[in-house]
């Protein structure tokens, strides 16, 4: 579980007080390729008559029509709400569960196979079962998202806590920090870089499950929107759904990284400075 990196977003901004020119250069470097690719997409499809690859311009117009004019944005709101609640539950259970497993050795040994089974079990395979248990409605979506996002966080929490240097625990005992203070001042922050990595993996899983769960037995959400478009053979409409989902996914990813870089400032700065 260690050695997992899930983002290429730059760790530190250009070192020191970079001049304006340099910052412009950095922005240009990161922008030219996406812009070029969008440009290629635009011109390659400009005169497209294939029903599957409509012109990009048409897709953009359709996106505005569908999501703003026709009010499909409510689907995004529903999706995000389910994601938020499910993810929050999943991550909380993951951290608390991971801490418990770290603390309770025998429990860890005992439930290890079950946890690994649930972790590697492709969560979408549980969809039919979830319908049977939770019925139809947001509850099922939330439950599935929560269930899927527990495991990466839980396992990373456990791994992170087990990976804390024994010298740091000796230090805590030497300073007589006591149980709770050791947990809040040493165990949690010490494992936090890996907990964050787990939470990021959980977010990815959560978004996937958000979409999958809406593609089966749902009546709202982005996944529902895309699947409905498919059933209507409304390919352009489907493209708009994919576009919106890509935007949301990217935005959530960057948001996560943004928050993580601030909360774990000590970790990224110390790493950038070369000490452990």
């Amino acid at each position: 579980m260690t050695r997992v990196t899930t983002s290429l977003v730059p760790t530190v901004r250009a070192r020191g007080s970079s001049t304006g020119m340099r910052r412009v250069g950095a922005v240009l470097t990161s922008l030219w390729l996406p812009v070029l690719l969008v440009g290629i997409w635009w011109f390659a499809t400009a005169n497209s008559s294939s029903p599957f690859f409509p012109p990009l311009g048409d897709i953009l117009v359709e996106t505005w029509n569908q999501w703003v004019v026709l009010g499909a944005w409510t689907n995004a709101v529903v999706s995000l709400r389910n994601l938020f609640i499910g993810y929050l539950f999943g991550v909380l259970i993951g951290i608390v569960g991971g801490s418990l497993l770290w603390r309770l050795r025998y429990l860890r040994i005992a439930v290890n196979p079950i946890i690994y089974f649930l972790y590697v079990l492709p969560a979408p395979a549980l969809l039919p079962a979830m319908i049977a248990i939770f019925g139809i409605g947001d509850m099922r979506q939330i439950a599935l998202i929560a269930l899927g996002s527990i495991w990466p966080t839980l396992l990373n929490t456990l791994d992170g806590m087990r990976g804390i240097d024994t010298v740091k625990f000796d230090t805590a005992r030497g300073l007589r920090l006591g149980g709770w203070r050791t947990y809040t001042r040493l165990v949690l922050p010490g494992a936090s870089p890996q907990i964050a990595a787990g939470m990021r993996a959980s977010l990815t899983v959560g978004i996937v499950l958000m979409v999958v769960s809406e593609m089966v037995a749902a009546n709202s959400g982005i996944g529902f929107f895309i699947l409905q478009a498919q059933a209507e053979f409304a390919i352009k409409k489907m493209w708009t759904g994919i576009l919106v989902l890509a935007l949301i996914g990217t935005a959530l990813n960057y948001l996560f990284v943004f928050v993580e870089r601030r909360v774990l400032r000590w970790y990224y700065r110390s790493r950038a400075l070369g000490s452990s």
Partner: protein
Amino acid sequence: SGGGAPADAGGEGDGGAPEKSTLTVAINPSTQFAPLYYGIQEGIFEEHGLELEITPQTDIAAIVSGLASGTYDIGFATVVHAVTANANGIPIRAITTIEGQIQEDDEGTVTIASAESGITDFAGLEGKRVATVGLSSHNTMTMWELADRAGADTESIELVQLPFGQMAAALASGDVDAAIMQWPFAADALAAGGVELGYNNRELFVDTATTLFNTSQSFIDQNPNTVRAFADAMAESIVGATENPDVAKESLIEGLGITAEQAAGARWNIGGDPALNLDAFEVARDLLVKFSTDESAKTALENLDVSTVVWPGAL
């Protein structure tokens, strides 16, 4: 049609031997395909120089696009799918029906309400939650139309996409108030006290076929004899299955991999006329226009000449 057909023709028909003898046929497995399996079992397709490779595929949209991309030679779709696909620029053509035309006493698709919901007719669906196998499917359209005719506000009906197999359970648990179902699943729902609201197709599609085998325009252009041979074989199979329903039912045991008991309860339009006509396409187009919320989609549907959706040889 069929200009330069090879000389050593082994098949019948007027156009010569099929250009392609092995066909990939995508179906959405159900007992409605009894005539198809009957035809295969009795060697009717073989007589026409055809060998069929049946591919089960639950997603009709995937079948339609598979036809357009050439993955499948022939594939199942309802009339609603065929019309929608063409309105969206995907050129598929209906070449034959899978089971014959709908009759006055059709016992196919049925709308059932749960006992607890208190719904007794289509008007009662207003504001309720209804399970359907596909959101923009044939079943949904007919249910909307019937509800509309009964005076319900169709926009207030909440749809949930569910496979037939789960509808009975969803009705029983109260997850949905009503479901548009197929046999044999409908039996479970009715046995659990479900209320039969009506047979959707009986009201709207009598004497016209709604369940179709389709292919792409380019396949027709390149393999006219094959298409003809398939259509002929299918028509013969439908007639044969009508004459020997028990044999046709038995053919399902191996074909669909179901039990003898399930096969005995198989249903299709036994005795339906195996010919296509444009009525179903016009009704479907009108329903789609009526219930479309999207202006551009509506315009495309209005501009669609439904006769282009059907292979001329089928009419």
